[in-house]
């Protein structure tokens, strides 16, 4: 053709054609098309030519013109995968140690994740099994005073009626008294007609509506009527089986605390509360017709009731909370104004109400002052992130070792590429390899989880079970293996598949400075995480130690608490005297109140006499104790005197602690008059002692006289504790033949108050150890590999005269640099976290630098040990071995 112009048809059509056309014919047919296009362009318009071109191409879209998409690959897949597995297996056999490290690390990471996920799943499942789960609420009072930000679930008795009558949005309202108060808490139980008493816990007062709101299933009896008669109670299935086996106990009578003048009839039997419920009660005593003291049910003074409500569907909880403020304004504030108390003004400014979904109680009540042993959503997050981190460390191990050993695979990659492998195939191969590793690890990890579950249960205070029966277990594990395999294998796959065949086969494996930087960064990351975990564990342990051994201001050693002593009644004094007669018993006191949890509490407000209208009241604990209390517990009296039973006026006597003196602003406390709901004269001042968890500070405390306490505390001084306990038991049985003795040690009860912190410390410690193990595994593998690489260099150095020490130093110094960097990064981070955790505690250990020195030292020593194993081996080896290959 004579024209030298080049006509080009639309590119996109060419691309389209190239896309679908058979490879073997594409070039020729394209040529034909271009020739024809040029002709058409010569003879007519561009437009016509383009249209014709497009039509031509479209008409070429025929079955025997289209390249086979699937066919080409499918031919290869099965065979290639078999080959991949074979090669992977050979690799594992040839380098057993590295494979073991990779799999070991992964399994640990997976086991950790598994255990934590079981834990989290359990925590998230509390109180979720209600039909109306999204509209069962608990009512809370919020005090938004910035200096005293608190939330609590207690309300006054008349509130239930008000809620029923004034708020049409509310379908049902029920009150609950879960505190140790009157007959709620624990009691001695005796069936009618029997003599023997048994100790039972788990008593609460409840309105009948509580059964309906919380959808409590009944074994015997009708939910709506079970608590409708006064002096009835509902018992749980397991208690019913204990006291009335195999029969319907409705209508039968039981007595509490040996009081035969107040019988209780059984109105129904409820199912046991599941473990995942915030309520764990066995006995509900009806509030119907119950008035704890004359006028109590209509008095707005005292908040002792928890309130549960069920609004109508489609009620907006926030709007309802707004409306509830009317209660504050119409009832609560007027009551306190009538009393002339400053509390009314505080309420007006700061008090509001909030509705909390019952399904949120378990995890979202960390800062709510309720009596339930709730979990904490923060813990859930914390443990979750720790598990994720440990898994991350394992993945990093995998990545590091895979890329480090790349030199061994380089030749293989080169040859595969020469044989025709595309990069995509190689990526596939290495991904399959890493999925293989992760699958084995998942199996191993699951097995580990199964074995370790009982220990983890002990550690975390739960009773989790391995979900073998769940349908989602296998698919979840498979999916997990694949995802983790892909994540961990992505980087090594791309790295390894990127080798240029020419360079590799020539022998220039350049895995020098560039890749080792990334590797070093990952090692630093691993050790930083380990460092943080170690520091945290150490700090928690120290804090625990501090708490348990700090001078708390009273003597908790060698004190035995005898529970249920109130049933002694008038035999109380002779009983005390009998005990004190014994040599090994120093003193005995009775009280309901002790500075450990599980005993009673009573919060009142106090004012200086005559100033209750003027001042803000001082909230203080009021404990009823006898004259031996201070002596038995070793509490120091700094001013004034103890109770004296001979003085009749001591019924109005009160002993207060130093904090209360300060808060009330009393200059001469002894002889001062103060008032709560009745007047008192201060006869003595005691040293402050910790009667709540050491987390908070020491609050005001007042002691008044009573000799009807229900816990007898016995101070013992003996070398033979068991003999002493036996003699105490004998005496008890003499006085109370129908009630078995129940005792605990004061220091045990005290330690148990900090169980949750101890548990957290243990979990941290375990995970710190885990993280360190995984990190060390990685370091070990790396050091082994690098030493291997430098074996020739080492041998030459030895031949030239290097000593053992020189070589050792040379090998380890590199790693030391990385460790030091991790320490430098880890310490500030650890400090920040621990500081914020300790901020919760009024009394805390110092984050002194000795703490960090110990942890750093620990990390360095561990790392050194790991690295030196290989270094020493290398330094000792005969130089001939390394040079033999040459």
């Amino acid at each position, binding site marked *: *053709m004579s024209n*030298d112009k*080049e006509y*080009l048809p639309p590119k996109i059509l060419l691309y389209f054609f190239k896309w679908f056309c058979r490879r073997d*014919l594409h*070039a*020729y*047919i*394209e*040529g*034909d*098309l*271009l*020739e*024809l296009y*040029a002709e058409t362009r010569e003879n007519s318009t561009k437009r016509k030519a383009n249209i014709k071109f497009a*039509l*031509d191409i*479209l*008409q*070429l*879209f*025929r079955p*025997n*013109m289209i390249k086979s998409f699937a066919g080409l690959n499918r031919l290869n897949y099965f065979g290639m995968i078999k080959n991949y597995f074979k090669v992977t297996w050979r690799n594992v056999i040839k380098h057993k140690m590295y494979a073991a490290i990779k799999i070991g690390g992964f399994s640990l990471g997976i086991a950790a994740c598994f255990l934590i996920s079981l834990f989290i799943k359990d925590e998230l499942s509390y109180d979720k099994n209600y039909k109306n789960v999204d509209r069962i609420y608990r009512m809370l009072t919020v005090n938004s005073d910035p200096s005293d930000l608190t939330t609590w679930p207690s309300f006054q008795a008349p509130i239930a009626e008000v809620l029923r009558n004034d708020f049409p949005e509310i379908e049902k309202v029920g009150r609950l008294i879960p505190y140790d108060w009157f007959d709620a808490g624990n009691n001695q139980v005796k069936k009618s007609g029997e003599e023997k008493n048994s100790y039972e816990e788990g008593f609460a007062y409840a309105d009948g509506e509580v059964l309906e709101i919380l959808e409590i299933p009944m074994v015997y009896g009708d939910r709506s009527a079970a608590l409708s008669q006064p002096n009835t109670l509902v018992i749980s299935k397991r208690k019913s089986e204990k006291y009335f086996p195999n029969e319907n106990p409705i209508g039968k009578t039981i007595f509490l605390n040996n009081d035969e003048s107040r019988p209780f009839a059984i109105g129904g039997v409820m199912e046991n509360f599941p473990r995942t419920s915030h309520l764990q009660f066995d006995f509900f005593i009806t509030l119907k017709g119950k008035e704890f003291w004359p006028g109590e049910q209509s008095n707005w003074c005292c908040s002792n009731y928890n309130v549960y409500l069920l609004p109508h569907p489609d009620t907006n909880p926030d709007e309802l909370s707004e409306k509830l403020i009317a209660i504050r304004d119409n009832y609560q504030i007027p009551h306190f104004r009538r009393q002339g108390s400053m509390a009314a003004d505080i309420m007006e400014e700061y008090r509001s109400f909030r509705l909390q979904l019952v399904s949120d109680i378990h995890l979202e009540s960390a800062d709510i002052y309720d009596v339930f042993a709730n979990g904490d959503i923060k813990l859930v997050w914390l443990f979750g992130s720790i598990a994720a981190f440990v898994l991350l460390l394992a993945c990093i191990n995998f990545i590091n070792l895979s890329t480090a050993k790349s030199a061994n695979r380089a030749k293989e990659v080169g040859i595969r590429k020469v044989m025709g492998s595309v990069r995509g195939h190689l990526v596939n191969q290495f991904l399959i390899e890493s999925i293989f590793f992760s699958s084995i690890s998942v199996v191993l990890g699951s097995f580990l989880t199964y074995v370790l579950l009982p220990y983890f249960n002990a550690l975390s205070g739960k009773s989790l079970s391995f979900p073998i029966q769940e349908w989602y277990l296998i698919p979840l594990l498979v999916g997990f293996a694949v995802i983790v395999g892909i994540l961990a294998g992505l980087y090594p796959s791309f790295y390894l598949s990127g080798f240029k065949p020419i360079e590799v086969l020539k022998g220039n494996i350049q895995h020098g400075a560039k890749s080792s930087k990334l590797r070093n960064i990952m090692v630093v990351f691993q050790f930083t995480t380990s460092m943080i975990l170690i520091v945290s564990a150490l700090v928690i342990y120290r804090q625990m130690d501090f708490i348990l051994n700090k001078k708390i201001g009273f003597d908790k050693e060698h004190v035995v608490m005898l529970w249920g002593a109130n049933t002694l009644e008038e035999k109380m004094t002779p009983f005390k005297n009998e005990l004190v007669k014994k040599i090994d018993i120093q003193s005995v006191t009775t009280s309901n109140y002790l500075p450990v949890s599980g005993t009673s509490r009573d919060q009142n407000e106090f004012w200086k006499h005559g100033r209750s209208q003027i001042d803000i009241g001082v909230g203080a604990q009021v404990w009823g104790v006898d004259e031996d209390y201070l002596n038995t517990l070793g509490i120091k009296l700094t001013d004034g005197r103890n109770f004296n039973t001979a003085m009749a006026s001591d019924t109005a006597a009160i002993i207060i602690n130093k904090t209360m003196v300060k808060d009330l602003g009393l200059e001469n406390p002894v002889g001062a008059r103060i008032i709560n709901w009745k007047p008192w004269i201060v006869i003595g001042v005691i040293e402050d002692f910790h009667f709540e968890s050491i987390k908070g500070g020491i609050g005001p405390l007042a002691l008044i006289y009573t000799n009807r306490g229900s816990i007898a505390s016995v101070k013992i001084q003996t070398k033979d504790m068991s003999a002493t306990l036996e003699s105490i038991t004998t005496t008890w049985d003499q006085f109370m033949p129908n009630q078995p003795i129940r005792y605990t040690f004061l220091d045990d009860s005290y330690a148990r108050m900090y169980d949750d912190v101890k548990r957290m410390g243990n979990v941290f410690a375990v995970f710190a150890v885990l993280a360190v193990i995984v990190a060390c595994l990685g370091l070990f593998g790396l050091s082994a590999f690098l030493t291997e690489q430098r074996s020739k260099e080492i041998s030459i150095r030895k031949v030239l005269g290097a000593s053992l020490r020189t070589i050792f130093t040379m090998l380890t110094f590199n790693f030391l640099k990385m460790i030091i960097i991790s320490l430098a990064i880890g310490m500030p981070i650890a400090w920040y976290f621990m500081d914020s955790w300790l901020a919760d505690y009024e009394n805390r250990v110092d984050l002194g630098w000795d703490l960090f020195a110990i942890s750093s030292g620990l990390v360095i020593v561990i790392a050194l040990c790991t690295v030196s194993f290989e270094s020493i081996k290398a330094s000792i080896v005969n130089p001939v071995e390394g040079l033999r290959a040459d």
Partner: protein
Amino acid sequence: MKKFQLGEFEEVVLLTVGVLYQQAYGVSIKKEIENRLSRTVSVGALQSALVRLEEKGYVQSNSGESTQERAGRPKRYFELTSNGAKALEYTRSIRNELWDSIPKIALDLKFA
């Protein structure tokens, strides 16, 4: 003999390949058919037929030179194979037989 199955279009293409002896490639075959038979031939149909013919073994292809108009793309030249020749002869003889068997009276259409 059933082995020589040829569609009408395939037969035309095959014949044209023969006509163009050593000059037969995509564009030339297309032009030749369009000129002689006065019908438009789409590139797609033509290529498809050529592929089928090659599969059947009636033509064989080889690469030719590339020219400027084709932007450097090579040409694919087609030639008849012995099988292809046989197929054409067979078809021709069948047609002739049929043609000869028609009685004169059927072709005498002056009365229609």
